[in-house]
């Protein structure tokens, strides 16, 4: 189960970021999205989506073991155990963990909204 990324197809529209925040925070504010689009412009002219691949680095780094893996493989933050130290955000290799209210980190939980709106084939849901 993963989000398959085809960078060459990405148009940099950020609709994925927008829908992520609409879904997760009920706001329009792409800065809070749990995925990001790196724009390599003006040269070579390429967008590179960065998404969570549930690698678990965040869980490993968390001093209070507040990030745990669900049966389906997705890592989840347990807010009641979290001390908002932010280590997980720093270690995330894709740079896709974000601070939410009270500085509690948020991460991708494979809700698939981004893959549903991405119309270029850059993000595809793979089981």
């Amino acid at each position, binding site marked *: 189960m993963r989000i398959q990324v085809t960078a060459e*197809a990405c*148009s940099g*529209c950020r609709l994925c970021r927008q829908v992520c925040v609409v879904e997760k925070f009920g706001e*329009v504010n792409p800065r809070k999205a749990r995925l990001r689009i790196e724009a390599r412009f003006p040269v070579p*002219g390429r*967008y590179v989506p960065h998404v969570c691949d549930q690698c678990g680095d965040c869980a490993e780094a968390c001093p209070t073991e507040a990030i745990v893996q669900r049966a389906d493989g997705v890592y989840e933050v347990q807010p009641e155990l979290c001390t908002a130290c932010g280590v997980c955000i720093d270690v995330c290799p894709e740079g896709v963990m974000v601070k939410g209210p009270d500085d509690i980190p948020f991460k991708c939980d494979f809700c698939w909204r981004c893959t549903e709106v991405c119309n270029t084939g850059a993000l595809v849901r793979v089981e």
Partner: protein
Amino acid sequence: MLKGFGGRQLRINLSTGEIRTSPLDPTFARKWLGGRGFVAKILYDEVPRNADPFGPENRLVVTPGVFSGNFGPSGSKCSFGAVSPLSNGEGDSTVGGHFGPELKFAGYDLIVFQGISPKPVYLFIDDDRVELRDASAYWGQGTMETEAALKRDLGEDFEIAAVGPAAENRVVFACIGHDYGRQAGRCGVGAVMGGKRLKAIAVRGTRSTPLHDLPTLKELTLRIIKRTAQHPNMAPWQKYGTAMFVGWSNEHGVYPTHNFQTTYFDRYAGIDGGPLVERILVTNKACFGCWMNCGKYSKVQIEGKDTVYVEGPEYETGSLCGGNCGFDQIEQVAYVNWLCDTVGIDTMTGGNIIAFAMECYEKGLITRKQLEGHELRWGNLEDVEHFIRMVVERRGIGEYFARGYQAAAAYIGGGAERYTCQVKGQGMSGYDGRGAPAMLLAYMTADIGAHHNRAWTITMDEDLGKDVIRGKAKVVVHLQHIRPLFDTISSCRLFWGEIDVTDQEHIDAIKLMTGWDDFTLEEAMRLSERIWNLNRAHFLERNGGPGRKFDYPNARFYEEAVPSGPAKGARLTLADLDVMLDEYYAARGWGLDGNPSREVLEDLGLEDVATNLERAGLLGQLSAPLPPVRGEKYKPKAF
């Protein structure tokens, strides 16, 4: 609390450096909606009628509208407005990309600049932090260079709108560049920005826009996304963007060729969408929140030249800087596109001006000596590159072209006006109106001069007859209300035009964003008409009347027949144009002199404007009763 908007406005006096932030008035927001609406109202109210477009009293208005940054069917646009140095009337130009949304996320719906900065500055916005900063390090750099430099200095997550050397030197058709290749190109808004010594605006915003009913809006937008992903136009649009229509417009004899001398370019095959995608495309590129990406980002390699990257060419550039200048290879067109983007001139009026100069050269009206020993031949890249530099640096004869059509034609003499393919100083878009009379009428009457974004009628002209003059004006009026409406609400017109997102769906989205439950399509269309009349009044108050005398194109379009191609023989006479104008003014409720009547202005709630016009002796007299609804939707006849 105002929903759907950022909620704040900025007033910046560049002469004194004073910056004021204040809340956006909700009544004002509802009445003028944002984008082009804010521009029209602010310019009308604030710029003295005798103020020079390059003087301190002109305003530069920057405004994302209600859709910008929102979660509706598109939401990427931002309008730039100023009294235009091209037309000396209201000017507005809209740019996509990510700039408008970013301003919105910083909480601003409106920035109004006035004054002239004593030294080059740029405006820095990081949410609440707003500063004018020294821009001398960037002065002289190209638009894309400036963007890259500012992103390097401030952070990749800043969005930049910047002008290039053309704007610094007040070349009247200078544009504002953003996102490495999108422009607020028309009306010379860049020239006004550069004239104010404002090199760039850099913005970062981290706020959430307050919305009335996001859950329902989300449902609506997701439904539209799902539906339109299956639309038959979607795949070709995503693959080719607008460039593919070079072929189509040639086959139907509306493609501007050699400065609109004819309407068919026999070598168009090398500059169509096919070669673009096959030979130079690097990546597709979309505006914020757009799932139909029309942008094509290209890499151009031409022997003996630096490799350059440019967004485009889209259709307008592919025609006006393509066959209109005699270029038959996509790499050449893309290179000219890059040249224009870098120095910061509009590829549309720019492409027109280059073609105009080329024709003058062809006819011996300008000489090699005047071109500093160079030539200016159709389809010659070196010649064009040199000419653009002369214009941007205002060297020699370039000085006159930099001041616009009128100055150039007057200087050149020998009847050069005939070759200035423009209306009100704005170069024509990439469709020739001789085989499409309503299209010509649309250019003639557009508030900002010859621009296709106000109304586009080619297929209707074909349907009803290419030589049919009568009965089309009402449709032009309708289009002039519906199409610019998208620039007012800051969504992309192409969702409506290309993939059948309905006008009503846009209105539904606005209601969900703002909570204006009683907002209707009729209200929006009336607003569009109010803006149109306000701009007309503004134009007249600045330029005098009667309005009619400004509504003609150059003589080519009513004296010369199309000499070749599918539209061969098509011609219109001055009498034809007059018939169309009469019909058009009647459809608008204006006098036959082209001046708005008191009746129509009062109907639109513009009593004060009627009084101003009356005082100036510019009020029109109705020749027939005021039509209760102005404009009529075109209904293709069923077969």
